[in-house]
């Protein structure tokens, strides 16, 4: 075992433990905090896998934006504390057991499968040399130009949607919903 692997084991253990914490907390605020820990360790994992740009993205977008949004909505909902923790599904042990078994099987299947390397133009040394930011940027703005444009539409739609669905509604103005 070498140092990278030791780090990996640490990250993996934390990710798994706090993922479980996330889905078992009664109070969503605690779930959000656990998920924050998960995201951080996933970011650490990305650094180990030579993708520090993705790691930064993970922290900036997932931890810094998406999860804050969750927390924000949680606060805005102003759910009474007692009502916050919606109970688990009635048959949750069954689901958990079946899900766990399936997960185990998939994990085993994937771990045993062979994924032959098909060496591409970006071996780890090259990536480390040029920095993953530049490597990703080069590919993103050449080969992936079109998806890059289309993804902006996805974000635009999300923006319109969030405004349309949540903008304060005032009582009828001229028989219609106010703007």
């Amino acid at each position, binding site marked *: 075992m070498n140092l990278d692997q030791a780090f990996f084991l640490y990250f*993996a253990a934390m990710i798994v433990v706090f993922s479980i914490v996330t*889905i078992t907390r009664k109070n969503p605020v605690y779930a959000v905090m656990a998920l924050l820990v998960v995201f951080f360790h*996933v970011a650490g*994992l990305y650094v180990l896998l030579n993708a520090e740009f993705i790691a930064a993205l993970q922290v900036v977008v997932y931890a810094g934006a998406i999860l804050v949004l969750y927390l924000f909505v949680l606060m805005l909902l102003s759910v009474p504390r007692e009502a*916050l923790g919606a109970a688990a*599904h009635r048959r949750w042990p069954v689901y958990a057991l079946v899900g766990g078994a399936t997960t185990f099987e998939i994990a085993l299947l*994937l*771990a045993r499968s062979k994924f032959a390397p*098909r060496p591409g133009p970006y071996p780890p040394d090259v990536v480390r040399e040029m920095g993953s930011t530049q490597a990703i940027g080069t590919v993103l703005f050449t080969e992936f130009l079109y998806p890059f444009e289309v993804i902006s539409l996805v974000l635009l739609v999300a923006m319109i949607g969030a405004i349309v669905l949540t903008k304060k509604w005032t009582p009828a103005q001229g028989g219609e919903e106010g703007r």
Partner: protein
Amino acid sequence: MTIPLSWVLALSAVVFGIGVIGLLTRRNILILLMSLELILNAANINLVAFSNHLHSMRGNVIVVFTIAVAAAEAAVGLAILLALFRNRRTVNLDEVREMKG
């Protein structure tokens, strides 16, 4: 000095599974949404690991897209949840049962 690919794949499968289990067992919509984030993260871990393994940037670039999509999804999902909450005062999916059949 590298991490075996199979370790990472096993990890991502476990995270994926935890997400799915969360989705199946919990009724609190906020936690359901968080489980969905776990599922997306599992896929992202896979993509980054394969990218490293295959010496190609494609996986990493796809992660950039999935993260963007995850942000869009979170915005829309939470907006829908807010609209629902304003009408029904609940975040429990079991209590959102107007339609049956």
